[in-house]
């Protein structure tokens, strides 16, 4: 939890700066495009995705980080997204622009599965 909070705080600062700047200019349609505070992180550890199910609002970005000594991939079961192979500490991000349920797996170790729910 601590790490997640720090990470959000880190992102929140530039966001707040951006929002302050927005007060100075007429309202823009792009202002609500990226609800950054709702972005999510998935860690790949011990051949599993954690958390296994992540629920996010439309427009949020999920970032996966491989913490294993073995390369993994993040591949949508329905062909929506597909990472290149991610070695130790490498990341993959995808922004979900449509509501729905997105099951995914590691195509190298298909026993590893997870799910993103976009509401």
């Amino acid at each position, binding site marked *: 939890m601590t790490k997640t909070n720090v990470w959000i705080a880190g992102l929140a600062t530039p966001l707040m700066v951006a929002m302050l700047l927005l007060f100075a200019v007429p309202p823009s349609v792009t202002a609500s495009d990226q609800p950054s505070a709702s972005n999510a992180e998935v860690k790949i550890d011990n051949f599993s995705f954690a958390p296994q199910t992540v629920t996010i609002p439309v427009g949020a970005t999920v970032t996966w980080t491989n913490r294993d000594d073995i390369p993994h991939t993040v591949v949508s079961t329905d062909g929506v997204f597909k990472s290149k192979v991610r070695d130790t500490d490498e990341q993959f991000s995808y922004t979900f622009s449509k509501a729905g349920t997105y*099951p995914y797996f590691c195509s190298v170790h298909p*026993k590893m599965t997870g799910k993103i729910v976009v509401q």
Partner: protein
Amino acid sequence: MSGGIPVSRAFAKGMHDSGGKGGDFSFVQISDSHMGFNKPANPDVVATLQAAVDKINGLPNKPEFLLHTGDISHLSRPEQFDTVDQVLKGASAKDVFFVPGEHDVLDDNGKSYLERYGKNTHGAGWHSFDKKGIHFIGLVNVLNLKAGGLGSLGDEQLEWMEKDVKHLSHSTPIVVFAHIPLWSVYPEWGWGTQESTQALAYLKKFGSVTVLNGHIHQTMQKVEGNVTFHTAMSTAFPQPQSGKADSPGPMKVPAEQLRTLLGITDVNYVRGQHSLAIVDSTLG
């Protein structure tokens, strides 16, 4: 039954003098060299592959060829394949027959693997050949894996395999080699192959079937009727026993123990007896 049953001679550490005596010919299986891996479980996989080659060159009966059962590279990179090819050039046996592991077909669906190792193969790299009366079948079970599933052979390969063995006499000894085990070692970790029952059904008529796999980085053996299943050690790093850790990832052991958990598999064939003797030797 005219075909013999392969016999496991020894699993003991460092055993290498019982194999090959009086045999007509022998070959060596190596596996999981994971070239490019550099994590604490083994920071020098070139040195341990070289030690495997030295072990091969020191065998009392020179093997006629080598089988590599996949995960040649760690990340499918050309320079990783290059290094393995270079080190294996130092082996007394010059011919090497490969099948890919999942680490050899990352990102490009096996295209670069096939360009390098796919000569005289079919489909994704499966192939068969005959040596001294034994029929060898190399299978590919690391592509098009489905979410939640195991290793996979696919319909095209299964059809090819059925045809490939149809014309053979039932007394022909068969050796099947593939990366992921063709038996259910531990499905929870993906250690098995989806259509293995179907593939093995094609081999029912044969008196002697030996199945050689890698992937799990440790030796295991099971005999089921006419079929002996055997997995080889890695030359790179050990993995935990089924379910004995949180995951099947690399197992870190004290540096002085590493080479006692890596090794090669020497397979010896005696024509009259139709028997294959399988001898595992560790690198240290």
